[in-house]
Structure formats: structure tokens, C-alpha cells
């Protein structure tokens, strides 16, 4: 008799086929107030983390960029300005609610012509091989069921020489910061979630999923194993967040 394969959903072990649905429920629940909560939770610092990601992307006019788990379109907005009318930005997210918020927001900000929206699973990207000059996934990889499969899928659609940038919560580099961060994320974060979105569970999941996500070195190794070259990472805000960068050989 074969044992049922499981994966983690926060601190819980759930069947592999259930994780995507559960993650989807979390994001359906928080989509409407996602930006507000991001600003509240990070004190606005998430904008600086995303800014650094854009700085390292090396995206220029005419480039094709895939923004996976692009959510409300923070990165896509900036990329659409950088690639210009001759370039292309694909805002992709598996979650329809998040994508809807992102699409409406970008339309309201006047982004059109060089941006398309695609509901896509990072594990099975629906794009031809060697399509994009740059792929970013910001605060999305930890929610993916099979991260190795997703990394290989990203490698496939990147052009040779193209860059993958993974912005994700990671492991703080000092003990003191770890303690303060744990207190903040397990006590204050669900309370804020309850107050603003009336949904403490989703923000408890956020804190748990961050702890279950691979640390800096492990994710770097995963990228190398998937086939990326020149892999490196930059710790930000003491390692609370790390930006991993890899190139398709």
C-alpha cells in the first residue's frame, strides 16, 4: 500500500494536492487589503526590498520580464516603465483574486500596452522555452507546493543569460533579531491581521510558512541543483528577507 505524499502548510502537514487550495484560500481572504497589510506589517520596508530587487534585475528597454506571484503588481509597475513600449511584462499569479486586484491597480495607474496578465502556476509555467530576460518571484516561492519543480520551470522559460530573482523571507542573522522577529510574527502579526482583515489565521499561516521556508544557503543550493549558475544571495534587514539571484547558463 502506497503512503500518501504530504507537504507542509505552515506548521501543518497536509496532502500535496491540498496545499494549493489552502494557499489559494489564504490569498482570496487577504487580497483586498494585501497592500495595506504589507505596509503595516513591514512598516513600508517591503518597498525597499522590492526596490533592491529591481536594482539587481538589470532590466532594460526591450526586455521581457515575468513577474511570478506578482500579486498586486508592485514589481510589474516598475518593470513596465523600465522595459518601455518595445518590451513586455507578464504579471503572473496562481491566485485569481490577487491577480484581479493587481490588474485593476495597474490599469488605474495607466499601465497598458506592454503588460499582460496571466493566471499561471509557477510549477508549470505556460510559456515557451527561452522566453524571458528576467524572472522575479517576490514573497511567492514559499507558497509553492514543489519548489524544485517551480525552479526548473523558471529555468526553462528563461533565456540563456537571463536572471532569476527570488525575494523571500529568510533566516535572521542574529539571535537577538530572531527572538524579536519571532515575538513580532507569532504574537503581533496575527493580531494585526485580525484587526485589519478580520482574519488572524491567514497571518498565522504567513508567520508559519516563513519559518518552514528554506534558509539562505539551502535555497541557494536548490537553485544550483535546478541548473542555475552564478547563484548568490543578499541578506536584507539582517536576513529577515533575502534576495537570491541566479543566471541561466
Amino acid at each position: 500500500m502506497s503512503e500518501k505524499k504530504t507537504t507542509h502548510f505552515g506548521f501543518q502537514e497536509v496532502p500535496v494536492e491540498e496545499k494549493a487550495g489552502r494557499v489559494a484560500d489564504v490569498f482570496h481572504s487577504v487580497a483586498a487589503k494585501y497592500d495595506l497589510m504589507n505596509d503595516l506589517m513591514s512598516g513600508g520596508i517591503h518597498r525597499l526590498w522590492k526596490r533592491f530587487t529591481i536594482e539587481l534585475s538589470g532590466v532594460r528597454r526591450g526586455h521581457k520580464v515575468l513577474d511570478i506571484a506578482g500579486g498586486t503588481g508592485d514589481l510589474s509597475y516598475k518593470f513596465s516603465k523600465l522595459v518601455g513600449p518595445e518590451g513586455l511584462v507578464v504579471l503572473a499569479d496562481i491566485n485569481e483574486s490577487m491577480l484581479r486586484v493587481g490588474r485593476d491597480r495597474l490599469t488605474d495607474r495607466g499601465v497598458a500596452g506592454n503588460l499582460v496578465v496571466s493566471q499561471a502556476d509557477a510549477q508549470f509555467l505556460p510559456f515557451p522555452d527561452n522566453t524571458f530576460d528576467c524572472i522575479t518571484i517576490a514573497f511567492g516561492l514559499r507558497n509553492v507546493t514543489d519548489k524544485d519543480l517551480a525552479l526548473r520551470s523558471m529555468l526553462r522559460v528563461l533565456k540563456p543569460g537571463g536572471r532569476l530573482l527570488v525575494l523571500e523571507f529568510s533566516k535572521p542573522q542574529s539571535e537577538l533579531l530572531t527572538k524579536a522577529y519571532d515575538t513580532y510574527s507569532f504574537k503581533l502579526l496575527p493580531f494585526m491581521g485580525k484587526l485589519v482583515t478580520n482574519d488572524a489565521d491567514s497571518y498565522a499561516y504567513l508567520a508559519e510558512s516563513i519559518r518552514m521556508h528554506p534558509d539562505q544557503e539551502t535555497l541557494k543550493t536548490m537553485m544550483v541543483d535546478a541548473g542555475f549558475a552564478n547563484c548568490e544571495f543578499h541578506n536584507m534587514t539582517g536576513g529577515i528577507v533575502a534576495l537570491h539571484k541566479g543566471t541561466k547558463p
Partner: protein
Amino acid sequence: MVDPTLSAAATASLEAAINKALHYDPATRLRCQALAGKSLAIEIAFAGKKIPLCCHFEDDGIGISANVDDPTTCLRGSLPGLLMLATSDGVNLSEANVEAWGNTALLADIKQIAGDLDLDWEEAINDWLGDVAGHQLAEQARRQFRWLRDRGQSGKRLLSEFLTEELRAIPTATELKGFSDQVDNLRLASDRLLARFERLRAASNKDASSSNPTPPGHNA
């Protein structure tokens, strides 16, 4: 190494300040738009460290980043050298001890745009105080500025006259020029004398060698 969060905060603040300033000079903003897609990287040597800064021209303003990636033009130099290059007319790269590579036409464009910069700072004050109070304040500021500029110019002239004419502590510009011309003439004359001396010595050596030929069978 500085945490990227801090460097991103610094470049974000600088970028916001530059774009806010450009808001008050639409002509310069348009000229910057014409450079969209180009970038200028600057490596500033300061207090023993190298600080990279990259300025990207975009359709809707200027982007600043601390990461340099395949820029159109690069500059490398000390902070005083780069400031001298940016602010003084007629200073070339070697005088400022600044290295440049890449497309130097972009440098000329930027220098020209910076030279023509004319911020409507009264508009900026009006945004805060309203048109009437803002205009009054701007008029006051302009009067004060004119007074200070006039006093500065006349003060400079009076000091110069006092030092050269009354105290005779330093030479006048004309005297300095005369002296400089004399030094130039002396240098030219000494160069000519040296050349003549070298020619005479060469001729003398040639004569000596032709009058004392080496005896046959005598090997050195």
C-alpha cells in the same frame, strides 16, 4: 557591507528629491526624457571607500540605484573632483582627475542639461504657502539674494584693490601676467641655449672621433 535596505532607502530618497526638483523645471524634465534608456554610472572614491551610484534616465523621471549594471557611460573619481567637474565651466576630465569611459556624448548632454537647470523654486514655495504668501516670501528672498550678491561682488573688488593698490601685498593681474610672460620667455631662451649647446657638443664629439681614428689591428 551596508545592508541593501539602507542603500535602497538612501537611493530612494535621493531619487525622490531629484524628481521632485525636476517637477519645478518642466523644460529640463523633457530634456531628460529624451535620454530615456541611457544610464550614467559614477564610482565615487570617498574616505578610502568606493561608492557606486547609477543614474537611469526613464520616461517619467530619473532613477537612482546603488547597483551598476551595463551603464551607457561611467565616471570614476574623488568627490571633490567630480563636484569640480559638475560645477565649474571649462574644467576637463584630466584637470578634475576623473576617468570616463563608454559613451561620452551622454556626459556632454548631462553637463549641458545641468548647466541650463532653472528650477522654479517660487512655485515650490507656493505649493506650501499659497500664491500670495509664497510670492511675498519669494520677492523678499530675491531682494536679499540680490543684495548679498551685490555686496559679495563689490566686497571682492574692494578687497582686491586694498591688497594690490594700498598694501601692495600681492601683485595686480597685469603685473602677474607680465611676470608670467617673462618667465615664459626665459624658459624658451634657456631651451634654445640648451639645444645649441647640445648641437655644439655633438659636433665637437664628431670632430674628435674623425681626427683620432682607431689604429688598424687595434681592437678594443
